[in-house]
């Protein structure tokens, strides 16, 4: 057996795990690893800020389904990834983060660029490691990838002191990890599924409520089959968009604070809710005591802590969404469900009535309406683009007015709500899917939070399209101030903004701008056809609000409509 350095072992293990792309930024504590990278054929995307690296790895993981990998140095390099790690943790995205650390002898000495990143990230990683013995490095990397991608996925961090990466040891390929204390349950208890079958047969007003778990386990086909077989309408969380075709007649639209009227009303009136891969977040449920009060709730989730956390459920099922729905569909095959067209008619009529009461809509004016830009974008890309979003109004309009056919198409910071996520995530998505059109839907506020990654996109010739809905302010915060703070616009107006067209040009990208509704289509077309990184700025109606809206803490039927 040959001697290898820690850096060599690291790169060897990355190969073993099927990694071909890393997003990172070098520094003192990872010099030996970068020296090894220099000699290897591993693709390294050099970002311009470590936050960009972690979000790009996250976006890459979301579109490819593979584990995203991020590598940074110690101290500030490590702390700059914390927001992105928390983001991946909240949305259950498999990412492995390698951080450099000062040599083991200096740990605890307040050495230059030393920070206790394992301590800092303990509450926002699925697991993390400080490598203290080079002999354990290979095994730890294997475990980290296993933990990141299995069960409910999540970020795993490995902190590697410099004397570990430049030390040597004999390398032995580690065995498949067997963790005595970690065994996710994939296959559900069949008895629980029998109860679901009975509930489906008895239900008069059922709905399916799907979430990010459906996308993560790629259970979209099984979910669609279940809905179509039982003729049960489907609503989903923000994270669940793409899990059920947004153009299907059974689709109710998104639920929650900015959900559709019919989705929120259906949830309140339903007598059976089949919740799949959701965690009943407060933005979804509104006032929890009045959420789905008439329903028997079935909850399917791979993470037992998600079940009964916020809401009491009648039938808890711990299992992988895809496997569970597969078995449930098989069981339903042998059941006589009766004439479902007839049985579901009153419920369908009721939902149709709600649909007519309040559709998603906006009023055209002389100024560009942001919703119109997204509708046009949907039209021109035929719904086939990968859409990433920032956070705020841009995110909600992207969720409402673009319709997603499958998982991995709507990439958004759901749990943490990280402004600045969308653009680096789009870079990661484009790296993972070079042939797809990738569009970041941004606001003028959030795009500035990671604008430095323009240089990354241009350097690697990534033709990411950035749609900036420029309303000159922090739109969502301004909306809350308008509605709940008597229009006291405290620090939400951007008195000065950069010229986004010139900014794009300064980075070597293409900049386009539309200021009138009649220019929107032409600019979108031009931007989408340009094979470079493009910023398309749309100067939109500044006072436009996202509707419907449920005030925070109110029941979700308490909706402000347009």
């Amino acid at each position: 057996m040959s001697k290898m350095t820690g850096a060599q072992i690291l790169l060897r293990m990355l190969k073993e795990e099927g990694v071909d792309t890393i997003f990172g930024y070098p520094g003192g504590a990872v010099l030996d690893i970068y020296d090894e990278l220099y000699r290897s054929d591993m693709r390294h995307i050099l970002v311009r800020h470590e936050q960009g690296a972690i979000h790009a790895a996250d976006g890459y993981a979301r579109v490819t389904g593979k584990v995203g990998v991020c590598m940074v140095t110690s101290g500030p390099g490590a702390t700059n990834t914390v927001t992105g790690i928390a983001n991946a943790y909240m949305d259950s995205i498999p990412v492995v983060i390698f951080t450099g650390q000062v040599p083991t002898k200096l740990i605890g000495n307040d050495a230059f660029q030393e920070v206790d990143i394992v301590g800092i990230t303990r509450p926002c990683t699925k697991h993390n490691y400080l490598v203290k013995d080079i002999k354990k490095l290979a095994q730890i990397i294997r475990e980290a990838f296993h933990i990141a991608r299995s069960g409910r996925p999540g970020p795993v961090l490995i902190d590697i002191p410099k004397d570990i990466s430049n030390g040597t040891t004999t390398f032995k390929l580690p065995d498949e990890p067997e963790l005595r204390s970690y065994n996710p349950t994939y296959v559900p208890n069949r008895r629980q599924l029998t109860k679901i079958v009975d509930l489906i047969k008895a239900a008069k007003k059922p709905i399916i409520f799907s979430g990010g778990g459906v996308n993560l386990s790629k259970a979209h086909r099984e979910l669609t089959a279940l809905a179509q077989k039982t003729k049960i309408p489907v609503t989903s969380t923000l994270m669940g968009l793409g899990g059920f075709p947004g153009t299907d007649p059974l689709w109710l639209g998104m639920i929650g604070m900015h959900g559709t009227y019919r989705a929120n009303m259906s949830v309140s009136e339903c007598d059976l809710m089949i919740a799949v891969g959701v965690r009943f977040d407060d933005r979804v449920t509104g006032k929890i005591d009045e959420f789905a009060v008439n329903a028997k709730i079935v909850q399917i989730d791979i993470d037992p802590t998600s079940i009964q956390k916020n809401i009491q459920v009648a039938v808890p099922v711990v299992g992988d969404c895809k496997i569970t729905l597969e078995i449930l569909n098989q069981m339903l095959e042998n059941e006589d469900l009766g004439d479902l067209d007839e049985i579901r008619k009153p419920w369908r009529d009721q939902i149709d009535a709600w649909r007519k009461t309040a559709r998603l809509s906006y009023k055209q004016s002389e100024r560009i309406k942001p919703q119109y830009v997204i509708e046009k974008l949907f039209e021109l890309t035929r719904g086939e683009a990968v859409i990433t979003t920032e956070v705020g109004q841009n995110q909600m309009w992207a969720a409402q007015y673009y319709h997603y056919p499958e998982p991995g198409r709507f990439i958004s910071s759901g749990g943490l709500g990280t402004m600045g996520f969308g653009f680096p995530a789009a870079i990661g998505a484009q790296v993972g899917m070079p042939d797809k059109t990738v569009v970041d839907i941004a606001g003028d506020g959030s795009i500035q939070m990671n604008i430095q990654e323009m240089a990354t996109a241009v350097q690697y010739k990534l033709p990411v399209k950035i749609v900036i809905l420029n309303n000159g302010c922090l739109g969502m915060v301004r909306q809350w101030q308008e509605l709940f703070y008597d229009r006291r616009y405290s620090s939400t107006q951007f008195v000065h903004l950069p010229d986004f067209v010139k900014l794009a040009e300064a980075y070597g990208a293409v900049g386009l701008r539309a200021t009138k509704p009649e220019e929107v289509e032409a600019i979108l077309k031009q931007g989408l056809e340009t094979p470079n990184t493009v910023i398309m700025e749309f100067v939109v109606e500044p006072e436009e609000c996202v509707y419907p809206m449920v005030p925070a803490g109110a029941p979700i039927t308490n909706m402000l409509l347009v």
Partner: protein
Amino acid sequence: MKEEKHILSILVDNQPGVLSRIVGLFSGRGYNIDSLCVAETTEPHVSRVTMVTEGDAPILEQIKKQLNKLINIIKVSDLTDQDTVVREMVLVKVGAKAEHRAEILRVTDIFRGSVVDVGQEHYTIMATGNAEKMSALLNLLKPYGIREIARTGSIALARDLKTK
């Protein structure tokens, strides 16, 4: 819902940082820790954490699930519903003037404690028992002037050979 004390017996990997994961989980999610004891088991790679915590039924369910979710935690047993032996140890430094010494010794005796250190004007008494018993002892010693107390917090084992 009713808040109840629960004794959790938690088997964990004996590794640095594991205790911090447990404690961080409790502080981050706003759960209570009444007491905490950690020591090795017969397996050198495994430690037992005995923890007394408080909460209503849904909170306790979440606590157990969240603990189980931590990668380094091997097993979580709630000893509250099982037949269990529970003990804690107290060391108490109590003022002991000549005229009170006999009385203090008698009280100590009743609680099957022992005097482990003697000074000119004090005794240090060691006693074991459940939390209520220890509190009763301390109450009785109070009039003599308690100078310092060290309590271990509860440790517990199920009476059954196999912990459920």
